[in-house]
């Protein structure tokens, strides 16, 4: 086997030195009746060229070269080649969690830069080193709010990504933490009157998403006012992180949970992505996951370490803030490189392009169909109501090598045939015009 650096003679010599007759002696601790005496039923050993062929075949039986109008929590943005060139370096790719700081300063500094950038982008004071993704991050933010407030209930907007809401339910089902949902208005924003009714003296937090699942940007300040008046915390979840190039950061929130996939992470059929939690300094000790902090060595030289680990499972065990251990460090590094490439000006320009594309596309669709949720600002997603079943529309689009919007009726029966469309810098005017023509109506 080509990954194994030992000759038969090496193995024989080692066995001799250990004092074993055969390798079987070393497996003697496994009771005989449980030893596997046959080959595993996995495909036979393949040459590298065969592995390439196998996956090439898998890859080519997927959509390749299609125009993509899907967003809904996973966004198609251009990935500068520098990202993969850097994260393919073995020192980033094949290093372990940076517990041994003296030989992990590269990862530690990159994550410190990540934490700083997330603070700058979200308007929060501290950010952690990453969570699994936006959905689990949102669930952990909710549990964090419970620890801070000592209250045991939560309100979640129905305009939060449906799969995020499912994950929150999974995480909280044995925590005695009832979650109620609040509705949305005709402009797509949170129904404030409904929200006011749903918040009780037990409510630890209200969780909204902005831009929300319909692409509508919420009035975060107004929601925060209401939530804070009732003594609860506001958690803002961000699924389309590129929006922060032009959208005001949710500074009024107490906790921000963000999915960073838009920052240079491939769609990759849903993962790996990276979530991140950011919050106010006063809540720092309740944040789950790893944190990188700046310190000095014995000679006074600046360096970075994992810190405040008394929050974590390897120290606190069942009293930890979370059971999370492995996070998404390499993906956070990807995001850091992406954010460095575009930086202060590029993120704004790129976000403006997204806004322009989506504005153009929604305008074109609006000529023959109803675009829902008018009256509130949006970023790069919009909702189109058609007479036809969206699945039939998507089938027609697929025949022309286009992948249409996300049918909303599955999660929002009241929206009927509505479809959530997304346009990014990757969608050309020509693609938009063809899609509008195929949708017709």
């Amino acid at each position: 086997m080509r990954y194994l650096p030992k000759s038969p003679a090496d193995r024989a010599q080692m066995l001799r030195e250990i004092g074993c007759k055969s390798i079987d002696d070393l497996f003697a601790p496994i009771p005989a009746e449980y030893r596997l005496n046959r080959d595993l039923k996995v495909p036979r050993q393949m040459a590298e060229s065969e592995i390439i062929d196998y996956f090439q075949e898998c890859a080519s039986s997927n959509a390749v070269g299609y125009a993509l109008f899907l967003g809904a929590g996973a966004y198609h943005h251009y990935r500068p080649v520098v990202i993969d060139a850097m994260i393919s370096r073995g020192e980033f790719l094949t290093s372990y969690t940076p517990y041994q700081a003296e030989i992990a300063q590269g990862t530690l500094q990159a994550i410190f830069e990540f934490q700083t950038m997330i603070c700058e982008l979200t308007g929060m004071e501290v950010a952690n080193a990453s969570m699994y993704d936006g959905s689990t991050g949102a669930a952990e933010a909710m549990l964090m709010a419970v620890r801070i407030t000592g209250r045991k209930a939560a309100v979640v907007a129905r305009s939060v990504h449906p799969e995020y809401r499912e994950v929150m339910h999974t995480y909280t089902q044995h925590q005695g933490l009832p979650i109620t949902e609040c509705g949305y208005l005709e402009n797509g924003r949170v129904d404030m009157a409904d929200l006011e009714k749903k918040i009780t003296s037990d409510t630890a937090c209200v969780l909204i998403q902005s831009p929300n699942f319909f692409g509508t940007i919420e009035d975060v300040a107004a929601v925060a006012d209401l939530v804070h008046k009732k003594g609860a915390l506001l958690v803002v979840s961000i699924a389309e992180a590129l929006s922060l190039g032009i959208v005001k950061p949710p500074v009024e929130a107490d906790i921000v949970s963000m999915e960073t996939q838009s920052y240079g992470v491939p769609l990759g059929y849903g993962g790996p992505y990276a979530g991140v939690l950011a919050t106010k300094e006063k809540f720092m000790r309740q944040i789950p996951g790893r944190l990188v902090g700046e310190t000095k060595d014995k000679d006074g030289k600046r360096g970075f370490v994992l810190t405040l680990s008394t929050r974590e499972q390897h120290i606190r065990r069942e009293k930890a803030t979370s059971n999370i251990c492995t996070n998404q460090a390499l993906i956070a590094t990807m995001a850091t490189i992406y954010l460095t490439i575009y930086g202060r000006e590029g993120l704004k320009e790129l976000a403006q392009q997204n806004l322009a594309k989506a504005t153009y596309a929604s305008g074109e669709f609006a000529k023959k169909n109803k675009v829902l949720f008018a009256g509130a600002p949006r970023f790069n997603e919009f909702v189109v109501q058609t007479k036809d079943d969206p699945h039939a529309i998507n089938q027609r689009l697929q025949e022309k090598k286009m992948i249409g919007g996300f049918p909303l009726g599955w999660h929002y029966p009241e929206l009927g045939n509505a479809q959530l469309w997304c346009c990014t810098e990757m969608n050309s005017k020509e693609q938009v015009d063809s899609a509008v023509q195929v949708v017709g109506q």
Partner: protein
Amino acid sequence: MSNVDIKNQDIKKATRHVNQNEGLIFERSSPGKKGYRLAPLDVPEVDYKKALGDSARADLGNMPEVSEMEIIRHFTRLSTWNYAIDLGMYPLGSCTMKYNARVNEVVARFPGLANAHPYQSADVSQGAMRVMKTLSDCLLDITGMDAITLQPAAGAHGEMTGILLMHAYLQSKGNPRKKILIPDSAHGTNPATAAICGYAVENLKSNSRGMVDVSALAAQMNEDVAGLMLTNPNTLGIFEQEIHKIADILHEKGGLLYMDGANMNALVGKTRPGDFGVDVMHLNLHKTFSTPHGGGGPGSGPVACKKILEPFLPKPVIVHRADGTLAFDYDRPKSVGRVRMFYGNYGMHVRALAYTLANGPDGLRQTTEDAVLNANYIRKKLEGEYELPYKSPSMHEVVFSDGIQEQKGVKTGDIAKRLIDYGFHPYTVSFPLVVHGAIMIEPTESESLEELDLLVDALKSIAREAEEDPEFVRNAPHTTRVKRLDETAAARKPILRWKPAAKSVGE
């Protein structure tokens, strides 16, 4: 020659060399520098301040402005400050730091997989789904289980999923029960997971051989206990020889056996948890199946289970349709729910399958044998130089202690730091908690005899140094770009982000 240079003359594996200094990226930034150029906009421009109104952002604060050349230098320089498996051995016990094959990276980047949107329809996702299905089938035979989910994003996430399955199953039998038993040698994630799933944790003591005390288990097991979370081989690297008795005790009282699969690298192709009584377990694809650790993640933590737990698996599950094509089944009324959006860390599924295909049944077996051979070789060579608190046979890892060196005031953490000077990443320090001053070594199969001998020589040499000049070892590392860092100060007054130098008041 300095004192340090004289002391380091015996170090064979590593030599100091110049590496570059580099500040934080923000310190390189200046207005007007650019690392990007966008394609021209082909639709009318939109004034975002007008379009967004009150929701428009003023500016992007301290985000950096740098050129592409500087970005390459910055991250390349940072990378050179890291140790990595590509540079040498990582004897981290419990972490299984093995070779990460490059073909895995290549195939995961094929456009049809890397650019697949999770919501594109099943008929243009068959290839992506086939990867998941094939990997699932392989993992089921490897574990001897009946059903599997690839959704959990990491080991601890898999633990949570597995315990939720147990909870749901027991609930369906009328009583989810109150407690989970966890051995004193367990990973910290185990008790943290039990707590998240609403269970109280009860500690289970190990016996003098480092294994579960079966009579203590029998005494503690009752109708309040949902089950046991067991790592096998355990964190001492010892196979639980009475594993089936353990399973029987749990099953007799209606409980379930959860196995933490962190140590599967000792078992693949040699024995199967499903055959020795395990009901549900997770795998760490970033350990046993070689997906890269990336400085702390991403991982992937599939959960495999017996038939009785299948109805409760997270949704969706992948199924064959009548026409033979693959689809996601969301109609799972008994499911514990979703543990993550979409289908898991899919890119890791691709890499794990590529690893499995590169090995085949013979390669996987040889891998396990070499992993166990390497650990036992190190044990043999170092026994005597370092104290071996448990004499039971070792599987893929061996746990020594600093008992001998501590007499000179040199602790496991000091020896670990000195090992850095010798060109190695340290072993796992102070874990498992049942061993005072633990030195936990897992070489994996990826190390040649030469590399193993270098580690053995290094640790012998450090043992000698501890005897002759304990102070020198206590002050290690001596050759790294930063010396030991002040972790206490970092935690007392945390600085978790960069800030620009203070501006004058009023700015």
